[in-house]
């Protein structure tokens, strides 16, 4: 009895502190889940949502109707894979470099500078990109390609360049922000380990390879697992705004989110949009579980749950 009340007294502040977050999750993430059934309804406003007819998987058909189904699934998966792999690598690289700089006064400035791109809205970013890539007056065509005598490129109608462009833009925007977690973690590593390594004659590179990276591994795994859960979702701004919604680029810029937006802007059907959302969530869920199971098999301590 005494221990129980004592336990509660001990955890009460923590519970209360967590309450707003839990409440938020409950209201924002769990309550709306009841709406999943809309994905299987042919919503008819006269009959109301509950009275509408059940249509089975009809609402999911539009996702697989065209050859675009393959293109958009491929694009979504490959882009996210590239973002996860390259983004993690770049973030860690930045974090290691920054933590080496940590003593210097400049590091604070660099750190702020690295986070800044993340604060720029995608719409603003799309115009920055436009200033570079515009066919007639863009920086790349006018100030780089022209003086070099290379024929100008009509960027917004050549799909083949966009995989590189989009990956570059995404990394430019997010890598700095992503490195913060790693910087925090690296600064928490016991300095005496490095000193011991130094005495043993390990150089900087060897220290990074043998100490920093192994200690970072659990963090990397957790963050990667969390991004895998969203592998079927894409940043709408990046794939819609940045390519300026150019039709000629659909083959490399179409993702599931942009397809759903473009398809349903006209039809405006909530059953079909619910179906698309459900499809993305289910696949994301399966992927997280699978990835976690694999991690668990290889290295049980590092698994998320």
């Amino acid at each position, binding site marked *: 009895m005494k221990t129980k009340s004592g336990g509660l*007294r*001990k955890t*009460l*502040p923590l519970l*209360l*502190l967590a*309450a*707003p977050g839990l*409440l*938020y999750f409950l209201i924002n993430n769990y309550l709306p889940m009841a709406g999943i059934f809309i994905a299987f309804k042919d*919503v*008819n*406003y*006269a*009959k109301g949502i509950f009275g509408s007819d059940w249509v089975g998987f*009809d609402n999911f*058909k*539009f996702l697989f*109707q*065209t*050859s*675009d189904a393959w293109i958009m699934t491929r694009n979504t998966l490959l882009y996210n894979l590239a973002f996860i792999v390259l983004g993690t690598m770049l973030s860690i690289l930045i974090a290691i470099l920054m933590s080496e700089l940590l003593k210097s006064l400049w590091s604070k400035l660099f750190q702020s500078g690295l986070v800044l791109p993340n604060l720029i809205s995608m719409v603003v970013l799309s*115009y920055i990109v*436009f200033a570079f890539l*515009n*066919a*007639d007056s863009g920086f790349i065509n006018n100030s780089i390609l022209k003086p070099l005598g290379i024929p100008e490129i*009509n960027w*917004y*109608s050549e799909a083949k360049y966009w995989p590189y462009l989009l990956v570059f833009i995404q990394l430019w925007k997010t890598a700095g922000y992503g490195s913060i977690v790693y910087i925090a973690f690296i600064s928490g590593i016991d300095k005496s380990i490095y000193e011991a390594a130094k005495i043993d004659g390990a150089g900087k590179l060897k220290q990074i390879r043998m100490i920093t990276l192994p200690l970072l591994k659990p963090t990397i795994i957790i963050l990667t697992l969390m991004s895998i859960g969203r592998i079927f979702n894409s940043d709408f701004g990046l794939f819609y705004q940045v390519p*300026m*919604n*150019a*039709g*000629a680029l*659909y083959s490399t810029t179409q993702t599931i989110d942009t*397809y759903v937006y*473009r*398809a*349903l*802007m*006209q*039809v*405006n*059907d*909530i059953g*079909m949009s619910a179906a698309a959302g459900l499809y993305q969530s289910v696949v994301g869920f399966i992927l997280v579980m699978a990835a976690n199971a694999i991690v668990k098999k290889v290295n049980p301590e590092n698994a998320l749950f």
Partner: protein
Amino acid sequence: MKTKRLWGSLLSLVLCGSLLAGCGTESSSSSAQEGNGSQKVDKVVFAMPSFNRIPDDISKVTAAINAITVPKIGVEVDFRLYGPADYAQKVNLALQSGEQMDVFTTLGQFTNYASKNQLYPLEELLPQYGKELTQILEKDFGPNLLEATTMDGHIYGVPVNKGMSLPTNIVYNADMLKESGLTADQMTSLDDLPAVFEAVKQKHPDVIPFGPVNVNPSDTNLVLALKGMHKIDFLSDTTGIGVVVGNDGKVQNFYDTDAFKQGTKMMRNWFEQGFLEKDAATTSISFSDTIASGRGFSFLGGYSGMEAAKALSAQTGKNLEMKRLVPYYFDTGAVNLVSWMVSSTTKVPEGSVKFLNMLYTDQQLINTILYGIEGEDYVKVDEHHVKFPDGMDASTVPYTAMLSTGIVGSESLQYQLEGVNWSDVELKLKENKETERSPYFGFIFDPSEVKTQMSAVTNVVNQFLPALVTGVLDPDVTIPQFVKALNDAGASDIIASKQKQLDEWIAQQKK
């Protein structure tokens, strides 16, 4: 230690509290208007899109509207004003969440609302509460206007009553034309334009002779011109899958017709001669900006009447004029493009229709909605004209929705801004009656059985059309790809479904 923990608990309590406070609903302060007097007052929510700045506070205008509607029809109006970008979203949200939303409009989505049963059928209420409304539509447009909003015998909306004939005009910089040694008489059809563009280009090498009227996605109005030239009925949607050319009753794919091939070939020629920008299909700089900066010469626009160039000149600061090149062709979609509708979930259908009736027929109400309060927001000049109070303009007056003139009510009852020729309004009404109507006027396609295919083809059209109507891609190569992609997406199902519904509709008309 103990106090510390107490403080911790308190702090987190405060945090929770502030969170909950944020969630609190604003308790609605509905005035106790009901009950004074024996007459019951219906509360109608009326949402209108405004292309002007949305004022922070429109309560004065709402009060002015209610000063008209409460005594006359016993309706208290809850007036909502939204910008064009979020109008549809706000209305849909209200409809889906069950919030009260009674009278609203749409830009081109009429069929969608109707096919999802979101609209209240008006055919029983209109004869009773909308007599004046029906009369003025007949006077200004001609008979049977409401056919364009009738599905399965139910009238689901009322088209806005304005100059609805939108012939294709070439809008051009008159000074540049003169400097190039040409006159407007040299432009009588689309075929005359390349010579004009060439002359302008010779004289002003920096100027782009022609550009898309809308960007993102780019649209040159080529499709509008082709519709008028070849008398093409789009059968009540805008996708172009399933149209009828002329009066043969055969539903076909617009993008597979000779008309479309010829048109895109012409545009391709213009593009290859350098009359359009290289990135015309994807540019995000609107051509009116290009014209305002003195680097653009002309575009094709669909405008009723003859005076639209005046407003465009004021907007761009250049001396613009326009010349009609292609007549208009009335199909159902052209007429119900902007329609006022009543929500199927409304609790006050009578009040809504009474209000709708006034929205088309009460001069005072229409102009209060458009121009605000006399003396504060506008000053009357004469019977038909108003101006802004001295020292004010559209962006500085407390309230104006003057750019919504094409959205609300009857154009023949609206005040015009000083300087607009009143005879132009009369001309527009005359053309409403004289413009050729498609034999399938009144046919509305119900897309619900092919909505999967509709959503798929919409994507394909977005992908190919902008580059074709700007000539950026070669139609000889691209159109076959385009048509194949459409067929893969299920275009033939849509065409078959449209053909079936059209045949039924024709059979019904003959009865």
